[in-house]
């Protein structure tokens, strides 16, 4: 595996090699293993926080910096990454989180990784170092290269530096479980909570019949806020202890609910698709969670046949998925294709196919 020690070394590699695939912490093996002919570039040496002034609400770090490290630095100053990048404990890096386009439980409150990325530096397929976006919280100058990198899977360039918007971390959090009668009621509850002015820091459906919700802010207001939610919904609410909350969050962020030897995929959905998808997942013996208020399904499948049926099921439903753990020719599942717009972009960024194919 190639291991550049600086962006300049990385540029030199890109100019020499082909079928390159950048790898961060390897926490999403389906995205970092590549194919037989792939040449892996380990960017873990490009690490460290470069600029952080808490009052600016921004942080700039090298792309190989572990998410965990950034979370700790921010925590010391009472701030956080509200989109809650997953796989932090498994060693996920900032660059890998952007390239995979992953957001966690916290995306419910202010949005996902696309809503917090402000600036990037990357090495293009031409071996140039490109700066896109900026380092301030508001910027409309130039094409939005940072957003293009979200979900780009290392196929458009290798990230070397990233800037995120960060927010003050709520003083306290609380989590409750809503015990619904059945799956249908759980889905209805999710939809209802989505359109109400409750400022939720997390809204997850744990099949078959639980809805988890998390709030944050000034602790003294929690009792009244939770009572308001309970009265609106008339569904029994169980307030979870701090240690229960910690366990549940760890479980969700690291996908430890995934049974051993199961593959894992993310599917971009909207709440209206949940019923139908749940049926599909059950019919092929998959485990699943619906996160972000029902905008994402996380699905764990038991074997290759289930994976293929999952792909077929997604294709029929005009949905796209991303493989995170498991094997497949491409990590892009279901109804995803490189459209004309993306083809033209890739022709400009990587005209000589230095990077691995989709």
């Amino acid at each position: 595996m190639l291991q550049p020690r600086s962006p300049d070394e990385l540029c030199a590699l890109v100019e020499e090699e082909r079928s390159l695939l950048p790898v961060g912490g390897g926490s999403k093996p389906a995205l970092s293993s590549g194919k037989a002919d792939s040449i892996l570039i380990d960017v873990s040496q490009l690490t460290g926080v470069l600029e952080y002034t808490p009052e600016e609400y921004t942080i700039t770090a090298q792309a190989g910096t572990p998410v965990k490290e950034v979370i700790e630095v921010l925590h010391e100053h009472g701030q956080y990454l509200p989109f809650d990048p997953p796989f932090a404990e498994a060693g996920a890096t900032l660059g890998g989180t952007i390239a995979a386009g992953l957001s966690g439980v916290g995306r419910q409150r202010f949005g996902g990784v696309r809503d917090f990325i402000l600036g990037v530096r990357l090495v293009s397929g031409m071996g140039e170092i490109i700066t896109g976006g900026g380092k301030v919280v508001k910027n409309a100058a130039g094409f939005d290269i940072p957003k293009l990198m979200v979900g780009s899977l290392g196929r458009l360039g290798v990230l070397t530096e990233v800037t995120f918007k960060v927010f003050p971390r709520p003083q306290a959090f609380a989590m409750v479980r809503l015990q619904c009668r059945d799956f249908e009621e759980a889905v209805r509850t999710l939809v209802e909570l989505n359109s109400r002015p409750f400022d939720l820091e997390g809204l997850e459906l744990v099949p078959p019949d639980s809805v988890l919700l998390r709030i944050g802010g000034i602790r003294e207001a929690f009792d009244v806020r939770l009572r308001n939610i309970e009265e609106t919904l008339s569904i029994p609410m169980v307030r979870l202890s701090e240690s229960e909350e910690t366990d549940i969050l760890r479980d969700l962020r690291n996908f430890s609910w995934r049974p051993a030897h199961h593959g894992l995929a993310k599917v971009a959905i909207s709440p209206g698709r949940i019923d139908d998808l749940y049926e599909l997942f059950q019919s092929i013996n998959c485990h699943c969670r619906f996160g972000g208020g029902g905008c994402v399904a996380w699905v764990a499948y038991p074997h290759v046949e289930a994976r293929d049926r999952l792909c077929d099921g997604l294709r029929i439903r005009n949905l796209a998925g991303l493989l995170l753990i498991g094997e497949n020719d491409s990590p892009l599942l279901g109804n995803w294709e490189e459209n004309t717009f993306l083809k033209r972009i890739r022709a400009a960024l990587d005209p000589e196919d230095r990077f691995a194919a989709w």
Partner: protein
Amino acid sequence: MSNEVRYFALMPAFDDLRALFPPGRFLESAAQLAPYESDGLTVFRVHPSAVVIPENQDEIIAAVKWCHREKVPFVARGSGTSLSGGSLPVEEGIVIALNRLNRVLRVDAAERIAIVEPGVINLKVSEAAAPHGLYFSPDPSSQSVCTIGGNLAFNSGGAHCLKYGMTSNHVLGIKVVLPDGELVNLGSSSLETVGPDLAGFFCGNEGLFGIALEITLRLLPKPACYRTVLASYDSLEKAGDAVSKVVSSGLLPGAMEIMDALAIEAAEKAVNAGYPMNAVAIIIVELDGEVPAVDAEFERLEAVIAETGATEVRVPQSEAERLTIWKGRKSAFSAVGRLSPDFLVQDGVVPRTRLGEALATIEQLGREHDIRVANVFHAGDGNLHPLILFDGSEEGALERAETVAGEILRLCIRLGGSITGEHGVGIEKKQYFSEMFSPTDVEFMRRIRDSIDPFQIANRGKMIPDGSAPALTAHGAHPLEKAGVISRE
């Protein structure tokens, strides 16, 4: 004004374009074209060869395909409120006016989305969503007239961007006609993405990637309540420090604004907002969210403000009072405009911790060039809006104003910020684009543009520097601005 048809429109190829539209929707006489020759940046004027007014997607696509075939540049235009000259026509090109595609096609409360046509007015989206307790967050000050298509193309902002993001953060899916007439669907109705975030990348393209035909927007639940405070200071610096204290307190206001004395005076004359007239600067801070949370946070905010040396602190006691404060703020720019026959406005961004330094330098620049500068800005995100006043009839005044404006942009770059927070680069800031980005970065963006639009027919000459720019002339305020409908911020 003559009715003669301009030279280019007499080319035989234009007959094919003319045939696509009934006479009332194909404009070619000088009198018909006049309203389209300029936009919110009135210092530039260019006559287009023709204006077409499609009423549906097929007509847009047909016009784009014609442009591609004939290599005639086109500029898509909504309400023409761009402050960077983004919808300024291209010489020898046509304007595709999108105002008639103004339907909100669907509001889905369960999915929290609205699907709209590009000519829909920004505020109409929130109006359509209101019965469901939802709203569309981006709120540029021109939101009562500007269109979603323009907001998307220029990634418009507003007063709530720090907490809620810009237009691109609220666009989920886009059906696009590329500059060669090909159709693509970018994104979806999901808040999540798989593969590169192409809808996000399309936003802010300044019309260079084609035209958005149908747009899926993310809606948010309208906050349960707002609590606002207005504090006065005897110096701009103290107001800036107060903002820093609020930011460091761990609170996350939905909006945080600063106005200086000139802006206060003008706003007060215009709408009687009840602003303190002896203040050198005021800040407006607003919290939003659930009632019990905001009540608790507001107590903390008041405690923070109490430590900032404010000469006066006002808390509106009713919704009507709160809205009056905002009315003053939102009309401040057009009001300041009344103090001067002409003005330029910039929207550069500086890191928030450098605000004090930036304001001091702006003041000094004004003094050096004998130009008055008023300041109203989104302090929460460091987005300046210096309003540079001048009289175009006075020889050399426009050039002096331009110099000050340019120096302010350079200052923003030097302090590590951006040349534009929400207006876009357009034609106006093109020359500063290559000061903010390196030659490699500019070349990279040019390569992307050329790959998507090899003949450069989509909004040619905008954003990416190419050496050409129409001459500057002073034309006074935009008619809508004079009427107090829009303002430059």
